[in-house]
């Protein structure tokens, strides 16, 4: 074993950019009185990290750090997505923290560090760095959820999230140790070749190991039955933090899950498939049905995000590269439409956090209502929005794998979620009672909404370009 070389560090450029931004902000934290300094710094870091990641999209596969870390199309795709999540979440945070008494510098440091963890996790090809990276992300998330220290709701959410999160981390760690015991390695390639050569298929321990690893990762994407934290955490957190978690944690979790399933346990499709089918089916059903009765927008979007985890998992059911590509496309579009929907909630301030707050919005803010309608249609999966392309891809891969019943369940749930989302549209467009007009919101929020809406619409009409990037590892 040799230490990391300079060549290894060059694989970490996007992560290093974020870490440099973290260090600068930490040094300046005490001096930062104006929120704009931290915001501008984070925006610049996210942009440069995103550009750095996109530059390497077509470099092919380069591995480093003794084969623990890889730079390939898959990882760069997700790093680009994580950089975009960070960028939009930062923009959406503008003008909100000062009201909540949140320390400005610390908030951005935590966002940056969580994004760094996400980025490392999508490049990890060994279970140990994967665990470390996901812990970095999750621990920052706990603090972000509870960052409004003087608020009991925020504390409660953070504690719930922390307890369930630690439990899930323990599951993941236990799964990793079992896998190590069975295969003698934690490297994905090593696990795959050990499983292939020794034919461990019949071992019940292997099922337990795989189940625990998948369960630990399913927590990150809030798939049922590992979903209980999401509604409480989203509700207790500030809306921008909830948006960041809903988009970023899910993207990173899906990326990790996809790579583990395809590379490490790729030979065990017969064992994996029922687990993923169960997770996907339950998430679809529970997420869409429980979303029906929600009156708090953040809880509603939380249950919606659980249902979307189910859709995204449909791509992984088959265990084929085409299916993983479909999940990647789903994750990409999901991030933008979810950040967009949260963005509208944020733009409307306190009013936007309640479902009733959307009453009569179309009359007061026609543009905001129209943008929200686009996100809602996309979340429902209406063409020609990106949500439809995403849904078409994952359902195709479920049907290709022969899971027709699951596909019918998925489209049936999309009728249920249509009811959920269209309830918001009905309130916006068809309600006569009008709440007091919302305050103006900062330009940064407008910019974030515009970017999200643009991706949602253009991605739906011309998805071919993006889909050509979405290549499975």
């Amino acid at each position, binding site marked *: 074993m040799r230490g990391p070389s300079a060549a290894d560090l060059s694989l970490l450029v996007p992560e290093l950019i974020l870490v440099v931004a973290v260090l600068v902000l930490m040094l300046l934290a005490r001096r930062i009185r104006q929120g704009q300094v931290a915001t501008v710094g984070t925006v610049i870091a996210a942009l440069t990290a995103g550009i750095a990641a996109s530059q390497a999209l077509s470099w092919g596969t380069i591995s480093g750090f003794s084969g623990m870390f890889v730079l390939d199309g898959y990882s760069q795709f997700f790093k680009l997505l994580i950089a975009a999540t960070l960028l939009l979440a930062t923009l959406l945070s503008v003008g909100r923290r000062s009201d909540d008494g949140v320390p400005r510098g610390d908030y951005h440091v935590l966002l940056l560090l969580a994004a760094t963890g996400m980025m490392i996790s999508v490049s990890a090809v060994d279970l140990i760095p994967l665990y470390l990276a996901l812990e970095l992300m999750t621990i920052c998330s706990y603090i972000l959820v509870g960052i409004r220290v003087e608020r009991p709701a925020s504390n409660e959410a953070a504690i719930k999230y922390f307890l369930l999160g630690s439990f899930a981390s323990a599951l993941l760690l236990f799964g990793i140790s079992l896998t190590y015991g069975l295969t003698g390695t934690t490297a994905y390639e090593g696990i795959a070749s050990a499983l292939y050569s020794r034919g461990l298929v019949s071992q019940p321990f292997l099922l337990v190991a795989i189940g625990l690893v998948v369960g630990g990762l399913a927590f990150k994407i809030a798939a049922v039955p590992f979903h209980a934290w999401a509604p409480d955490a989203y509700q207790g957190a500030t809306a921008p933090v909830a948006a960041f978690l809903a988009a970023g944690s899910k993207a990173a979790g899906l990326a990790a899950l996809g790579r583990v399933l395809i590379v490490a346990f790729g030979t065990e499709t017969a064992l994996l498939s029922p687990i993923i089918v169960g997770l996907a089916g339950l998430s679809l059903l529970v997420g869409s049905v429980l979303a029906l009765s929600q009156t708090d927008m953040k809880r509603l979007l939380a249950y919606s995000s659980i249902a979307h985890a189910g859709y995204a998992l449909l791509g992984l059911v088959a265990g084929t590269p085409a299916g993983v*590509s479909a999940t990647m496309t789903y994750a990409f579009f999901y991030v933008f439409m979810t950040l967009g929907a949260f963005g509208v909630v944020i733009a409307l301030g306190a009013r936007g956090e309640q479902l009733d707050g959307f009453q009569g919005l*179309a*009359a007061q803010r*026609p543009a905001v209502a*129209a943008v929200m309608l686009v996100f809602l*249609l996309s979340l429902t999966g*209406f*063409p*020609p929005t990106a949500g*439809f*392309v995403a849904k*078409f*891809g994952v*359902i*195709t891969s479920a*049907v*290709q794998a022969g899971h*027709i019943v699951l*596909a*019918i369940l998925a*489209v*049936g749930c*999309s*009728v249920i979620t*249509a*009811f959920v989302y*269209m309830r918001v*549209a*009905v309130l916006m*467009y*068809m309600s006569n009672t009008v709440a007091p007009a919302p305050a103006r919101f900062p330009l940064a929020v407008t910019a974030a909404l515009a970017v999200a809406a643009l991706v949602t619409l253009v991605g739906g009409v011309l*998805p*071919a370009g993006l*889909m*050509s990037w979405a290549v499975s590892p």
Partner: protein
Amino acid sequence: MTGYPVLSVTTFLPLVGAAAILLFGGGRRARWMALATTLATLAVSMPLYTGFDKSSSALQFVESAHWIPAWNIAYSMGVDGISLPFIFLSTLLSVLCVSVSWTAVQTKPREFYAALLVAETAMIGLFAASNLFLFFVFWELIVVPIFLLVGVWGGPGRVFASVKFLIFTLAGSVLMLVGMIALQKAAGTLDFRALALAREQLDPTTQGWLFAAFLAAFAVKVPMFPVHTWLPNAHTEAPTAGSVILAGILLKMGAYGFLRVSLPILPEGVQLFLTPMLVLSAVAIVYGAYVTLVQTDVKRLIAYSSVSHMGFVTLGIFTLDQSGVEGAILQMINHGIISAALFLCVGMIYERTHTREIKDYGGVAKLAPVYSTMLAFFCLAATGFPGLNSFVGEFLIVSGAFKTQVWLGAAAVWGVALGTAYMVWLFYRMVMGKPNPGLEGLKLELNARELATLAPLALLALCLGLYPELVLSYLRVPVAELLAFRGLQ
């Protein structure tokens, strides 16, 4: 041929117009911009009719471009003799929708006309699409503007009606989505023509399941009995323009789906489901007609009459007989003209009286002779009066039905008789007799704009009644090809 891609320009011009209205259509400009857009759309579509070769069953005005190569899906458009009349109807009715909304729509005119134009794009695109994916995109696209048209500008029960419409159509179309994906898995393509060639690879069981999946979507849109219950709500609560689009075009989408997908691609599935389809059609005709008889709300009455009339259409399609299918397609056009005209008539008088109850009318003939003449004309057309358009269509369908099964023909004739009863009775209650005191002092007579809105439809009804070849000549070759599978059985 012309120098521009006619189908794409015709399809997307309304969308451009909608965007322009949203951006620059403040105040009274919106309706002018909408009128200009719909007229321009009608104008740019003209080469379709002058340059069309009726003797060929091939797709014409074909356009194709790469779209989503990963799924082997292209952006491909093309029309044949079956789709062409519907494009004309869509572009024409859109102009009339703008015209009838001229003074009726006072709230949020910008959004109203934008939604109307998006719906126009979806209608035209659906009939111009030559692959199933694109077809599905337009199929779903129309749901959103109609949902908004009904829910925002509709009557008192608009919210319930719009949500019911949305859930019903969505429940149907998601099964079509699964069917479409399964079809792609089985045949490797979604292009209509290629699918029709690949149908031999699909075994009868698969075809049966696929037929059922597509049936869910098509039956809701037609609507067939028993999934018609969204229609009375939506038609009744919709603003006039919304009712016109619903009755004129949206109901035709389902039947068009049968012609475009079920018959050519899933012939074995059609054979499996033939009897239930015929029975359901006959039930829709007779049941729909009886329910129509007892309605007290004018719009609801016309809405239920659509259930009965669309029963004729599905009956004609599933006779799988040349004259039956030709009659069904002709009757789709006819119904598009007549029910649209009837909804226009009702909308025009509703704008003055603000009531849809039949008992609030009576003696309109004395107060508004021109209006009453127009209404009489369209009521007669709806009953299948000889010399007017419905007569030919119904005659062809009934003759096709008699050829298939005698009892089907009997049910159809029964439906025609009931249809005469409810239309004449409606006319009698609204127009004849002493003027209702509630109508005193209202200026009920049509103005020039309204007359000009109804005139094209009256003219079409008369021309198609006297010379049905105007449409039938387009249908002969493609329908013969559509039914060619019967020879192979």
